[in-house]
């Protein structure tokens, strides 16, 4: 997806869901972004990434604010929501490395920084998963956490859009 594919660019906000639909809790990022898309907040662009994250660098540099939702495995209770604002912070390689065969989210972030293709604001939401084995069922608490995150993110975005429109 490129920004020009979208009709309404006024919000300059992108939400990215990352995950594998067939690895149980790893699907939570995809689930969240699909639900957000159904709610069709005006001017919010959404995108799903299932495997190769390298396209993120071209994509997110076009936006003022980017929110990424991904499953995470840090040892916390399933359903715990981690919110990480990326300014100078680095992302943990271990927690966000979902595959040994592709470039991890943390590497994409650092590479974007290095080649100056970084969005002005980037927030990562990591939803703690428990079961990353094959399957299409999310663990108890994981889906509910995604729903809580969707509700709070929608509120946040509505406020942000109103602010942007007010400034315009």
């Amino acid at each position, binding site marked *: 997806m490129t920004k020009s594919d979208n009709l309404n660019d006024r919000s300059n906000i992108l939400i990215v869901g990352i995950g594998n639909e067939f690895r149980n809790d790893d699907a939570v990022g995809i689930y969240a972004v699909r639900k957000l898309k159904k709610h069709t907040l005006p001017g919010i662009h959404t995108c799903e990434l299932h*495997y190769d994250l390298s396209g993120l660098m071209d994509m997110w540099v076009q936006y003022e604010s980017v929110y990424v939702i991904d499953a995470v495995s840090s040892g916390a209770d399933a359903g715990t929501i981690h919110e990480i604002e990326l300014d100078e912070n680095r992302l943990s390689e271990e927690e966000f490395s979902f595959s040994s065969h*592709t470039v991890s989210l943390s590497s994409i972030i*650092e*590479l974007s920084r290095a080649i100056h293709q970084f969005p002005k604001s980037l927030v990562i939401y990591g939803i703690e998963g428990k079961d990353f084995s094959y399957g299409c069922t999310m663990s108890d608490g994981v889906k509910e956490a995604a729903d809580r995150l969707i509700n709070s993110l929608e509120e946040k975005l509505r406020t942000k859009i109103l602010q942007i429109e007010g400034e315009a």
Partner: protein
Amino acid sequence: MKSKSKSVKKKTTKDKKESVKSIHVKQLARVEGEGALHVKMKGDEITDLTFTIFEPPRFFEAFLRGRNFSEVPDITARICGICPIAYQMSATQAIEQAFGIQVNDQIHDLRRLIYCGEWIESHVLHVFMLHAPDFLSYEDAIQMAKDHPEVVKQALRMKKTGNTLMTILGGREIHPVSVRIGGFYSVPPKENLTALLDELKWTRDAAEKTIEWTATLDFPDFERDYEYLALHHPERYAIIEGRLITNKGLDVDISEFEDHFVEMQVEHSHALHSVHRERGSYHVGPLARFVLNYDQLTPAAKQAAQHAGLDTKCKNPFKSIIARSVETLYACEEAIRIIESYEQPEHAYEEVEPRPSTGYGCSEAPRGLLYHKYRIDERGIILNAKIVPPTAQNQKTIEEDLLDYIPERLHLPLDKLTWQCEQAIRNYDPCISCATHFLKLTIDHD
């Protein structure tokens, strides 16, 4: 065949020292999949060296048994996220040969075209992101990007060209879904392909600059007398067609692969080692293809290689980074040629009627020769499958390279020596995920 000896020994001509030194790379970085290297030395003598592939076996050949022939391209594509087209092409070729199907020139060209996309994306990824940091003494591509952002930006744009080509023809860039036995499920209109011409021409020019750049790298002084193996076609730089040839005189039909090469199980690896039945290890990949098929390259690719100092006498595996860059240029030119002459075929595929038979397929994956064989019954059900990926073929060569490479460099600090060993492994762009599709399982009963 099973090799009981897991360790290999190499003694240097230097004075013997009794100190014991070990190199352990527990998790190799910048390779596809999970592997490790263990080297044990006593004085100047290597007492044990294993390039260990511990990624779990994946049993793809067993999955294929009992499945319908039409499922094979989609199942085998899952073996690798980097080179799914290679698996689809070797599989379709083998099954079409079994059923006596000959695809028309347009379908054949489209298959070369989607394969060019895979070569571009895979080669660029390896040259810039995985191998270049070794030569420039960076820990990884991220550290390299901090000092050379424009180089990395260029690489990402080049890679995207290959990915886009695969998406247009394959439906998606990872595990494409449009390839089928007899052709494609659907083929694009000409305008969808011509839309990519400007970017392909930009990538072609970038590939020329890449060749010049790789020629400036500092290459270790290291050569071995390899047996190079590749497909060969008299008119085209072989990607999906040709005979099997080596620089040691082999020239046979692909159906004779197993008459000359055999896979061996070794205790330290989940990947089988493929060797020539009489001469042992051999070398597949971009350098082998360049050496054996130089005459079939485009004039621009030949000229760029000459300027870079790469010739058909090359025995230095570190220069595979130049060969990969030359093939990137070739793949761009070949893609441009195919797109400019493309006419959308009336039918996207040939009708397929199964018959009981055995079929053979070989194509040149980015990392080297990929062999498939299928035995199929009258209903089109797969009775047996055999897949020999390039990394399994290069694995023994990688170990032998290290046996020769390490003794001359024992004076180096351990961290630097370890780094150079990893670099030597990455010469082959090993795809460990591809190589672990099979494990020989033996159960003993009392």
